[in-house]
């Protein structure tokens, strides 16, 4: 594998950052400090991390309702993310988007998305733009298992295939769409078989193995940059938390969760790094402590921030028109 030690350390850092961010998001939500819905990525960190490690800074990603991990992995700043969860002006979206709509166009992050499957199409558009401009960019499209039954999955993969667009479709198969298990929402086990409908490469990998994810995406990126079109990569993984915070997860067993916790991607990478003497446990601990601090600082930043001036509610709809405000 073409993975430098530095790259592996960076992946460790990304995974730990995602985990720490999500745990803090969980706490803040539990305390009632962040409004709306929050969908946590705990347990799936290897997918976003491995995939984004294979990208350049000007490459694109599209994300989902469960987007924090993708955004961190593509270089999003936890400070502005946390502030957005709190709905503050200093957040990525000035408090207008919240958890499900964080984006950072300057880093190629084309947005989390509240509509299941919407990212498929947007990713194809980014790929089309890259192809049209002959820019050499690619787009990684993240999505869940259940979203592969949405209309958009099909239209997007077909168009990407027939136009040979530089898009890498990365499916996070965590076995459920909310309460509906995969066998109840589709009659297949490996979602990668759906690649055959578009005559594109399709692989199923262990989504809790960050190195495997990196490798698969790296290959797909090379294929895409070579103008050979899209790839479908299915990453089998699991979410440790409920669908959203507050979900009592009555639809799955404690044993199942325990089985998957044993396969947690984070201890796994830690072990790999220490076993191969790429990082010592002390180094990892120090890294983790620094990250915890960064995330705590982000919470402080968020809490010190203020909600935007209420008058701003009518801004940002158009580039030019400002809608009428209300006089109450």
């Amino acid at each position, binding site marked *: 594998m073409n993975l430098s030690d530095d790259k592996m350390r960076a992946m460790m850092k990304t995974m730990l950052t995602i985990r720490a961010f999500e745990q803090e998001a969980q706490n803040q939500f539990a305390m009632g400090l962040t*409004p*709306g*819905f929050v969908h946590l990525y705990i347990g799936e960190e290897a997918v976003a991390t491995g995939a984004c490690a294979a990208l350049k800074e000007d490459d694109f990603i599209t994300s989902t309702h469960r987007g924090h991990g993708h955004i961190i992995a593509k270089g999003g700043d936890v400070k502005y993310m946390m502030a*957005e969860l709190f*709905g*503050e002006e200093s957040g990525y*979206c000035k*408090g*207008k*988007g*919240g958890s*499900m*709509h964080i984006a950072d166009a300057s880093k190629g992050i084309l947005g989390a*998305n*509240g*509509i*299941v*499957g919407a990212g498929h199409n947007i990713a194809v558009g980014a790929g089309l733009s890259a192809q049209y401009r002959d820019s050499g960019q690619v787009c990684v499209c993240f999505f869940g298992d*259940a*979203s592969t*039954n*949405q*209309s958009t999955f099909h239209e997007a993969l077909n168009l990407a295939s027939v136009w040979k667009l530089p898009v890498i479709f990365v499916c996070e198969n965590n076995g459920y*769409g*909310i*309460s*509906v298990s995969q066998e*109840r*929402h*589709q009659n297949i086990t490996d979602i990668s078989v759906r690649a055959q409908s578009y005559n594109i490469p399709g692989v199923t990998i262990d989504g809790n193995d960050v190195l495997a994810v990196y490798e698969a995406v790296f290959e797909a990126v090379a294929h895409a940059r070579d103008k050979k079109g899209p790839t479908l990569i299915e990453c089998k993984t699991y979410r440790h938390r409920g669908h959203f915070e507050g979900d009592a997860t*009555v*639809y799955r067993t404690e044993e199942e969760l325990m089985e998957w916790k044993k396969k947690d991607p984070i201890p796994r990478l830690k072990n790999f790094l220490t076993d191969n003497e790429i990082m010592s446990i002390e180094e990892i601990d120090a890294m983790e402590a620094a990250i915890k601090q960064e995330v705590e600082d982000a919470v402080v930043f968020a809490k010190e921030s203020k*909600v*935007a001036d*209420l008058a*701003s*509610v*009518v801004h940002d*709809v158009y580039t030019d028109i400002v*809608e*009428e*405000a*209300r*006089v*109450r």
Partner: protein
Amino acid sequence: MKTMTYGEAIRAGMTQKMREDDTVFLFGEDVGPFGGCFGVSAGMHGEFGELRVRDTPISEGVIVGAAVGAAATGVRPIAELMFTDFVTVGMDQLVNQAAKMRYMFGGHLKLPMVVRLPSGGGIGAAAQHSQSLEKWLAGIPGLKVVYPSNAADAYGLMLTSIEDDNPVVFFEHKALYGVPSEVPDEMERVPLGKARVAKEGTDVTITTYGKQVLDAMAAAQTLAAEGVDVEVIDLRSLYPWDKEAVLASVEKTGKVVLVSEETKRGAYIAEIAAYIAEEGFYNLDAPIVRVGALDTPVPFAPALEQTMLPNAEDIVNAVRKIL
């Protein structure tokens, strides 16, 4: 009389019809053992089993489309979309198929189906999970559209909607699910197309529906303290809608304020306003005032969201404008 929440009333309506008529069944995302994203179908899977309360994949197009095909072939499906916002992916099935099939086929078909659409803001769910989109469907020939504001109407309209031989769009306001109100012991059908006078009054007519009925009642109370006697009309059905009730009230008061949670521009209440300006013009003593949401997507932060959505205070101000 007993007390029920709005959500319980919707469930009671579905449950009663499913007990009475075994061609009625419910399907949608997570409506089964999970009980629906807002708990509206909680327990129904237990009572009726897998075939009658069925979880679907995330495929809104075929959820609505399958309801159409099923309704055309001898059963009475109820399809739930988890959020109204997702009707964007089922519009063809609703508008080009369900609404038009009977007409295109020369009247040789009936389509008894209900599509449930949980609507509205106020829960911090942001732009793609908070919309009010009545205007898309209430103006489509071939669809009937209802929007209850309280438990009794939710229950009664559900019975009538399921029994109707035409496609009925059943709007529900998410922020009302937990709100209790009184329901008669023997629930009667609420006819489609009949408004309810929620409060009689002589000075100004407030015409609205859904959650804004509660805001209008609060506004009426505030105004009563100032000596203004407001009449509040709860439309209940957006199509057919009760033109007679509205015109009669305007004839009495000469003044009308229309309220909806849709973004004001192009909201379906514009139809009511235009209708009054066309058919009730000579009874009007003042401009027709509309209160709606600001003309923006629904923002996330609660303070912003509350600024964007209309409230009782806005209604009070609107009434004052034309006193």
